């Protein structure tokens, strides 16, 4: 493990992956993000394999959400490189990155409160010609046609996420857990090739959570979709990811398959100050 990290930091192309086969969709190299004098992310380096489920874990304040924000363009990374599908995306605006197929959710949900649930969903659909004023005049038919397709897909997803009853309600009346679900479903509406989920399971009941995880695996298998998620529930992390990246104090301290990571001494130190293996307590 430690050799792999060191090697990755030395060679810009990176070649530490072997378990899933080497076809990285996301390559993060030596990313630095500073807030004043604080290094929130201090040289993070890792790869995410296409079609994999990767968990990003670490104690509070490890820099996970900041790293998410740098990768998705919400923060300007000061140093390093982030390549998505082989293209440099560091310091690209968020909407460009989203259009390239990398869509994220937020730790604190961003439900569009004064819009109906269905509009929250339909907003996310890509390639809607009706989002341009000129198209509304010159080809309104295309916009209407796309609206129909999009609505159908949105209703399917709402059904799956058990939000169908709330279709026409304002998103502002949803509970915290329902907002989490809505945001997950809305991100899927965007038809991403890679989804970054910031604590997707927080506040969701375990039965529904299990269904969503099942759906995640299904999407991965059927559409080769890639998932990178921040999660504190170790059962979810250990049971559902192919790879785990562990951050502490702004650095990636370990990465690899779950069973390997949970026995890594540095990970145990970071989490528990030594003593037990992660996820077995």
């Amino acid at each position: 493990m430690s050799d792999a990290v060191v090697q990755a930091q030395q060679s810009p192309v990176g070649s530490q992956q072997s378990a899933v086969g080497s076809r990285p969709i996301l390559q993060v190299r030596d990313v630095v993000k500073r807030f004043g004098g604080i290094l929130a992310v201090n040289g993070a380096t890792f790869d995410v394999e296409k079609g994999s489920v990767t968990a990003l874990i670490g104690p509070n304040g490890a820099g996970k959400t900041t790293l998410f924000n740098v990768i998705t363009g919400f923060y300007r990374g000061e140093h390093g490189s982030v390549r998505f599908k082989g293209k440099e995306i560091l310091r690209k605006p968020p909407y460009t990155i989203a259009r390239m197929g990398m869509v994220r959710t937020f730790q604190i949900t961003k439900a569009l409160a004064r819009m109906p649930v269905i509009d929250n969903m339909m907003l996310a659909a890509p390639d809607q010609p009706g989002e341009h004023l000129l198209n509304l005049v010159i080809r309104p038919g295309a916009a209407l046609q796309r609206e129909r397709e999009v609505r159908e897909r949105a209703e399917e997803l709402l059904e799956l996420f058990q939000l169908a009853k709330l279709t026409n309600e304002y998103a502002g009346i949803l509970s915290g857990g329902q907002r989490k679900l809505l945001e997950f479903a809305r991100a899927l509406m965007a038809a991403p090739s890679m989804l970054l989920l910031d604590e997707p399971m927080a506040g969701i009941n375990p039965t529904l959570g299990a269904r969503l995880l099942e759906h995640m695996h299904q999407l991965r298998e059927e559409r080769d979709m890639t998932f990178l998620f921040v999660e504190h529930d170790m059962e979810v992390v250990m049971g559902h990811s192919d790879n785990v990246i562990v951050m502490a104090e702004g650095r990636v301290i370990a990465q690899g398959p779950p069973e390997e990571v949970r026995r890594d001494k540095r990970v145990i130190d970071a989490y528990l100050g030594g003593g037990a293996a992660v996820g077995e307590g």
Partner: protein
Amino acid sequence: MTELITVPLAVTFESFTSLGFWTGVGILAGIYTLFTLGLQLNVGFTGVVNFGQAGFMAVGAYAMGILVVDAHWSFWLAMPAAIGIAMALGVLIGLPSLRLRSDYFAIATLAAAEIVRITAQNARDLTGGNQGLFGFDESWNSLADTIDGWLVSLGWSDPETLFPLLIMVWLVALIATALLYFAQRSPWGRVLRAIREDEDAARALGKNTLVYKLQSIAIAAALGALAGFFLAINLNFLAPDEFLPLFTFIGYSILVLGGLANYWGVAFGAIIMWTILEGTRFVDLPLSAEREASVRFMIVGLVLILLMAFRPQGTFGKKEEMVLGE
């Protein structure tokens, strides 16, 4: 009018039955419907606070006036050009300030509007300064005569002088309201509302929010310019005092009266507002003219306070949308 002033402490309702009074109120309400539709688009549907609508109205009106009077353009060509200039100014103000938090943009628009007004006051060679700019409305007058002719042929022997303007301003206001209403229900309008709710969420879903905010501001500026043309025609001249920041805030009062996030409420709010503002001119109090003018705004203030107390969402606003706004 003159008789009224000589009788102290009298309220005469005669004027409320006169067609001339209502024509005047109607024209102002129509002008401010157009004006406030821009604010509704910005504030009610995009979440962008524009305090410079009077400035866009000034730019539209003065650009048209200068092009016609000083550059001898045709009135009909000068208007689209003036709309273009107002829109360009909106984009120019928006480009640096819309990237920042919304209060910066609000201040930038207010400042820009004042720059426009004070420039108009001082660039006397172009604008006539406080003396006013005259002589841009010949083309309109001949069109008004044609409309008058139609009114006569419909059987109205002596039509009210300003009636053609009333018809035209409401025709344009209704078309603008309907267009905005439909645009708002389109996917384009959905993106604007998403920006109002949470710009980061919209960006995370692939929307170039800056472009949408600039469009919103440019359309508002165009509506302000349109309002400016009608204001200029209504007055027969242009003077900087017609574009004080006060008028932007009258627009906001109309917005609150009609209700946020409802285009049809704007016309309603504008009619109520100008009925109060013009109607109170006929309330004769033993006060100096200056103080009486202040009383008008005190009445407007009282109406707004009562509205906030009993119907905070405005006449046509949705209560849920107020409560859910965090």
